[in-house]
């Protein structure tokens, strides 16, 4: 085992014990690779097996599993992605988070398909993974630095130049902010479920992978070349080539017209200035320098420099859609330069832009309504659109200073602490997972997915809805039909999580069949779509079982009162999901093969998926 090359894999995982400063190379077997694929699949497997009920997210016994997959490091466009899996502080349960850039590819070229990070270092430390080994280094001098500065210092101190991919946690994670992230390759983020806080609790400040000489065997290189070109062409022209041409923020206008743009903490759906903050305006008014990920031909990202207005001279990564929504319409401001500044600030501090946006917007509404006063907010006047007040508040959150200490717990917990009317207007899922930067009241499938997901973020949907036609099923007839919403999410669930196991960016994997052909060309497997969906479902069920065994309460699988409220204006005015919630959830459970009352997977569902080993962990089966 581990001696014969496995097509598509480096052939080893790396277990790193931070407390003992030891590492172990774990050989992969072909069966293990085929069963668990990589990314979220590897992560769910080890999390379930090795992190026992009773373990808290900040305990040394919690583990972070960071893996790429069979496409990672290949010639396929955007194959530098990795997926992280751990028990995280937002949901207090297991979850996954992905980031792009180069790390996934460089990790494989250094000889590893994934990392299992365990224990807790005695003092702040860093890791460099290079040519089949790990070097531990003292990172006390980096503690307190922002993520961009940390990356720069690691690169410079090792004289690595561009041959290393560095990810790090920022000051927010060091202070235990629940929605802190792992940031690397200058602005790429593993943002969900507080992965930064988990690593900081282990005293791990930074990890780097040096591009090495390890060869990844590919079964049919010529075929892969042809398929990769076809997939790239599909990705470039997908939906009119909007992402390639305008970046992810190119759709701000369409989100607004569809009633899915989040405006002023969901108090309205109207934002007449939407064209001032869209991707088209970014591209036309800012200085741009391309910033592609590993072998990416879409090249949707740039470094930007603001050229005019009050934030002229500000530089940073081109804001993605979710940053634009968080720091534009959601907080009621329309200055694009301010969006660049606030996006750069949260990336450097190591905060999740989505949760930061919900938090700032919620505070602004509370201030407007007199629920929170200037006195409560350390003197800040949190009027809608007050960018400088937002900047100060974000810095307070990252330092856990004053009101920032409460807000650092995230919207759900902060609202619970303040209570009353403040809780009624806060946007969160009852499980603590952070909604993406949309107004999901106009997209029921994604609200359902966000509230019920086992991954802590979108799991079944993404790309605008469940889209069953991509997998050979009839398209959704009415996106506001409760029964259809529940059924469609369950019908397609599995593929996206499978995709998160491949080591490829989902803006490149736009065609599931072609993506699978690439996987088969690399691995010499014969996977089809049903097989891929089934593999993803296994991962989902492992995470579901993990979370339920760790005490997750299914009564919390619901939106907060404001998140599930009825839009009072805009295209989706009057379409409220809450009266239908129980029915939708029940239909989803039924489609997933889960007990409608308890939410636990049925024994027959687990057996059907080949997860017989989990059956004995069901209540009453021991």
């Amino acid at each position, binding site marked *: 085992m581990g001696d014969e090359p496995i097509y598509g894999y480096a052939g080893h995982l790396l277990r790193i014990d931070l407390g003992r400063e030891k590492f172990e190379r774990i050989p992969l077997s072909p069966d293990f690779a085929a069963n668990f694929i990589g990314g979220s699949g590897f992560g769910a497997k080890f999390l379930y097996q090795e992190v026992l009920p009773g373990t808290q997210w900040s305990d040394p016994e919690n583990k972070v599993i960071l893996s790429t997959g069979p496409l990672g490091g290949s010639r396929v466009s955007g194959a530098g992605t990795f997926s992280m899996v751990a028990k995280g502080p937002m949901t207090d349960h297991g979850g996954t988070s992905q980031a792009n850039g180069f790390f996934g590819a460089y990790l494989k070229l250094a000889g590893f398909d994934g990392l299992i990070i365990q224990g807790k270092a005695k003092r702040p430390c860093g890791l460099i993974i290079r040519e089949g080994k790990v070097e531990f280094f003292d990172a006390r001098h980096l503690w307190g630095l922002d993520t961009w500065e940390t990356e720069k210092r690691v690169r410079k101190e090792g004289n690595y130049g561009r041959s290393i991919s560095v990810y790090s946690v920022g000051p927010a994670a060091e202070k235990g902010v629940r929605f802190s992230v792992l940031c690397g390759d200058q602005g790429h983020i593993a943002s969900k479920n507080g992965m930064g806080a988990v690593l900081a609790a282990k005293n791990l400040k930074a990890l780097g992978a040096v591009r090495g000489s390890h060869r990844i065997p590919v079964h049919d290189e010529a075929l892969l070349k042809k398929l990769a070109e076809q997939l790239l062409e599909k990705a470039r022209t997908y*939906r*009119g*080539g*909007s*992402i390639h041409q305008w970046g*992810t*923020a*190119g*759709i701000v*206008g*369409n*989100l607004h*017209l*569809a*009633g*899915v743009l989040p405006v002023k903490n969901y108090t309205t759906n109207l934002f007449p200035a939407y064209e001032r903050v869209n991707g088209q305006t970014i591209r036309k008014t800012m200085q741009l320098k391309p910033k592609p990920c590993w072998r990416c031909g879409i090249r949707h990202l740039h470094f930007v420099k603001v050229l005019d207005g009050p934030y002229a001279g500000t530089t940073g990564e081109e804001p*993605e*859609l*979710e940053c634009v929504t968080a720091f534009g319409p959601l907080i009621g401001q329309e200055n694009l330069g301010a969006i660049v500044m606030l996006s750069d600030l949260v990336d450097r501090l190591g905060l999740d832009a989505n949760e930061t946006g919900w938090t700032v917007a919620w505070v602004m509404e509370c201030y407007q309504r007199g629920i929170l006063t200037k006195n409560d907010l350390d003197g800040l006047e949190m009027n809608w659109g007050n960018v400088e007040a937002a900047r100060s508040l974000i810095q307070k959150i990252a330092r856990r200073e004053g009101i920032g200490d409460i807000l650092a717990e995230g919207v759900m917990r902060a609202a619970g602490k303040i209570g009353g009317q403040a809780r009624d207007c806060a946007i969160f899922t009852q499980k603590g997972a952070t909604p993406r930067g*949309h107004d999901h009241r*106009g997209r029921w499938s*994604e609200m359902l997915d966000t509230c019920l997901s086992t991954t802590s973020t979108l799991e079944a949907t*993404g*790309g*605008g*809805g469940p*889209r*069953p*036609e991509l997998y050979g099923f*009839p*398209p*959704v*007839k*009415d*996106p*506001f039909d409760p029964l259809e919403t529940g059924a469609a999410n369950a019908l397609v669930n599995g593929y996206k999580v499978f995709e998160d196991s491949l080591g490829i960016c*989902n*803006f490149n994997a736009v065609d599931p069949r072609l993506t699978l052909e690439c996987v088969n060309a690399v691995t010499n497997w014969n996977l089809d779509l049903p097989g891929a969906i089934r593999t993803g479902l296994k991962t989902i069920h492992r995470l579901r079982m993990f979370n339920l065994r760790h005490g997750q309460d299914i009564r919390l699988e619901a939106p907060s009162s404001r998140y599930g409220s009825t839009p009072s204006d*805009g*295209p*989706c*005015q009057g*379409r409220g999901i809450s009266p239908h919630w129980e029915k939708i959830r029940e239909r989803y459970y039924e489609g997933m093969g889960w007990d409608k009352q308890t939410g636990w997977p049925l024994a027959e569902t687990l057996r059907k998926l080949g997860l017989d080993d989990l059956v004995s962990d069901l209540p009453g089966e021991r």
Partner: protein
Amino acid sequence: MKKGDEVHFQVIFRGWAGELLEADCPGGTCEVSAPQGIFLRDFFSQWLQGRPKAREYFWDADHKRFKAEVMVILNGKYQSPDEEVELREGDTLTILPVASGG
């Protein structure tokens, strides 16, 4: 057809939907006439007959409705194309590509 037998309305195709129809609808906007009493879904079914490329992208011929890739907004409100909605004089129909981003 006599003038009184027709309704006139505006159809706006946004984003790549507009780019597909640039030849027919410069800038993505068309002024359209149709028989009075026509339903939304029947209008599009007929209108797209002569526009095969757009039809392939937008229209699910088996189910006679828009694919999930597009969303219909009638006079600023979401409209399910499957409901029997009659188009009226002065209506504005917006066809939006479904959009999402990270």
